């Protein structure tokens, strides 16, 4: 099968986000993704006990009367899969020394996924956040929606502090049906409640995927000279003057420990964890993601 796995730097030279999305998708086994939930009916699937933050409109009042417990009615989408592309646009995502920033890289992946979903007629929404929801495009299938989504991705800029937990809580409110929630973030400075949010989303039947994106510098720390490091996010005054060669080995261990910790959290929460560095061809990352999902469906 022919592949077109361009490097991120090559993709950045392409004309527009739509072109970039199409190139990435074409390079990543386009058409392999099959919607397992083909159909148009909405079918009651199961009950789920109410948890704070759940939509009270979905409470099954009959069940409340029978068993004196609050249950939510849940339905299985048999015709389309609603996908929320959740993009971390905090300042830290703007780091990229020798290639595209993590935010740009995440935009490439989100655009490719949105484009792919649109091709298949699946509705895809976009939520851009930092310490709050900065922009939201609800999942739709109408014509021109994907263009709006790609334009929004192209225009996103890094700023502010990151609060992924709050963003996921917002997504939980928005996803009134079982949805595919794809989170693009660097998980740096992620608060402890993020794991709880992920478990909540998963417990509601959502399919949750976390794309953990890091710059190669955040894996290897390949600096040679004495460097004055400064934090990127607002109100973060942390600074460090150091010879990075003294820290490189220890930094590599810390970085690996971070990835391993989040991988373990995701496994325990039944959340799919995908790690990528921004020097990897986005098509390769997308293809690996799609292959894995196809394998799991079987």
């Amino acid at each position, binding site marked *: 099968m022919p592949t077109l796995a361009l490097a991120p730097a090559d993709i950045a030279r392409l004309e527009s986000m739509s072109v970039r999305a199409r190139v990435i998708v074409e390079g990543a086994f386009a058409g392999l993704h099959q919607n397992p939930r083909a159909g148009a009916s909405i079918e009651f699937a199961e009950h789920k006990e109410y948890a704070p933050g759940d939509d009270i409109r979905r409470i099954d009042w009959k069940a409340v009367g029978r068993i004196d417990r609050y249950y939510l009615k849940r339905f299985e989408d048999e015709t389309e899969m609603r996908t929320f592309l959740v993009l971390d646009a905090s300042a830290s995502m703007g780091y990229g020394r020798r290639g595209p920033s993590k935010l740009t890289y995440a935009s490439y992946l989100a655009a490719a996924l949105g484009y792919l979903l649109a091709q298949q007629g699946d509705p895809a929404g976009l939520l851009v956040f930092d310490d709050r929801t900065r922009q939201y495009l609800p999942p739709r299938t109408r014509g021109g929606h994907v263009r709006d989504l790609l334009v929004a991705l192209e225009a996103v800029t890094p700023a502010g502090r990151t609060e992924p937990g709050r963003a996921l809580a917002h997504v939980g409110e928005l996803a009134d049906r079982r949805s595919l929630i794809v989170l693009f973030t660097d998980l*740096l400075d992620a608060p402890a409640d993020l794991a709880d949010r992920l478990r909540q989303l998963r417990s509601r039947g959502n399919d949750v995927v976390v794309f953990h994106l890091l710059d190669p510098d*955040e894996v290897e720390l390949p600096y040679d000279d004495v*460097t004055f*490091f400064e*934090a990127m996010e607002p109100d973060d005054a942390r600074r460090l003057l150091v010879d990075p060669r003294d820290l490189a080995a220890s*930094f590599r261990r810390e970085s690996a420990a971070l990835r391993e910790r989040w991988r373990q959290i995701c496994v325990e929460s039944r959340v799919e964890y995908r790690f990528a560095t921004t020097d990897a061809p986005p098509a390769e990352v997308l293809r690996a993601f799609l292959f894995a999902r196809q394998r799991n469906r079987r």
Partner: protein
Amino acid sequence: MHFVAPSLLLGLLAAAAPWILHRIGRRRARPIRFAAMELLLRAEREVSARRRLRDVLLLIVRTGLAMALPLAFARPFVEVRSDLPAVTGRSQSAVIVLDDSASMRRRTSDGTPFAQARARARAVIEHLSPDSDVALVLASEGSSAPVAELSSDRARVLSALDAVACSARRADFAAALRRAAQILTGSPHGDRLIYAVTDLQASGWQDVAPEPAGGPELVILDVGGAWENRAITALSAEPAPEEGAQGIAVTVEIANFAAQPARGLGVTLALDGVEVARGFIDVPAHGRARKRFVHTVAGGGAHEAEAVIDHDSFPLDDRRACLVEASRGLRVLIVDGDPRTVRTEDEVFFLEAALRAGGSGFSVTTTLADDVDLRDLPSYGTIFLANLNRPSPAFAAALIHYVESGGGLFISVGDRIDADAWNQELRPILPQPLGLKRTASALPGTHAEGETVDLRPAERLAPIDRRHPLLSAFPAQGDGLSSARFFQFMLLTPLPDAPGRREVLRYESGAPALVEAQVGRGRVLLLTTTIDREWTDLPIRPGFLPLVQEAARYLAGVPSGEATSAIAVGQMREIGLDADDRRIEVIRPNGESRWLSPASHAGELRARRLVVFTETDEPGFYRVRAARADGTLSERPDAAFVVNLDPRESDPALLPDDQRPDRAATPALAGPAPRRRLELWHALGAAAIGLVLIESLLTLRFRRGRVKA
């Protein structure tokens, strides 16, 4: 602390260089906005302790290095109290008298007194004020002065001081101080000082008188201290007839200069380098004891004997050597030319008695001229011809052959001598032709009928010359010969000076009394008077017996013991050349040899065919060889000698305080102790090198640690 070049201390500003470079490095650090600050800070926390330790260590080492270099270049020094006398700091002319005598070679806990003395002398020289001048004199007897004139060139004096080796000679401070005072005579400075660096051994300070007023001041720097010693002070060898013809007896005298008696002290005797006997002896405190070894040697001739006692801190005097002549030539033949029936009137009565005196070791045979077995002559070491009328031609020829082959012949004259026959038959071996008989005075109680009566008193001998080996054993005063009266004697026909002929004794009138001639390999002594009391009363004088015995040994080529074959360290040795010797080689105990030729001497020595060897600096055996006219090289055992330590150097007695010539020093010698400069830059230089190594090791170690981490 003081500095020779304080301006170089500005270089200490470089000590701030590591810190400044560190600060510059911080300022020039590239700022980078980095997302993974949390990871970075965690990593930094993990390595910060080690990194800070490294940074602090490196900063300390580099700062220390930057400080050490300018400090070292500034030549820092401190002044410390000196153990030198106060006077050393004055402007002066000084003579260092360094004690290099044998006792300075003993071992102490700090090395040797000589090493300490040299260090003290160096300290004095270095501490003298810059405008002072200094000379260097050695205290050992007969030594030369390394720097014999006042010099302001310290480097030269110090170099000469370093080149001085401790001798084995005795100390003679009387001569050394005279030499020092003489050097200071032309001093340009008002202050003239003599620094004697010594162990203050009393024997070296004999005859030292305090300097007169106005003379140089004497400062004694004592590097010695009390010590105890055991020594061999005498070693003698003699024939031991009770052990047979080859028997010898060696007597060792041991002195114990200690407050405790020496019990069971081991004494070893070696002959020709082979240990032949060992014994033990008790020596009382501050006393002496003798050990006698009797041994039978294999073969006649000269043997090297050496006695050794158990070593103490001064091993140089724990051994002593002598040459032993195994009796080859102690057979003596006396040819009686005027035998009498009354024994006391016999011509050779006194001669026989002297040669047979107890302990002499001579085997004496007396015969008449007609009874001499001519074939047996070579078996005798010495032949005495006493008032022999005229030798037969055969006897004369045998005698000539005997002497030329190395035999010794002693001729005494008398009334029976036929001078013409003698001059004719024995001319080749007579030292001088016989002349007329001369009567000095009448014999007491006799009438000189028919002769010219001389009313002058009897002839006596002129003062003897003890340099002759035959007379060297005679004391300077009371030699036992000067009292002898000579009433008649025979004049000798004058001859031009000839090599090998010398007058051993002469009368006060100048006429020869005893004349020696070297003939071939043998010797002849001619006594111009009788050997009995007919013409002289010499036979009843105390000197007769030693004269006869020494003459018998001398003619036979037998050294009589230590007195003739052994000399003290530093003494010169005269060596006579045989008729066909051209040059003499003296081989020292360490194997080095020195060639001597009479041509290199002048005057009397050259005329007498003598060479003088002066390099007797080390104790031991000195062999002698002669280069003959025919080009061959042969041993001269008769000229071999041994050099022993002067026993006075063995006595550790110190010069009492009340006899120290420096106790009458002027008050100017007192004063606060001077201060001496202690250089520190050597230590700083070493520290800088050490810091460079430490910095390199630390950097290497931390780089390796960075890779491993």
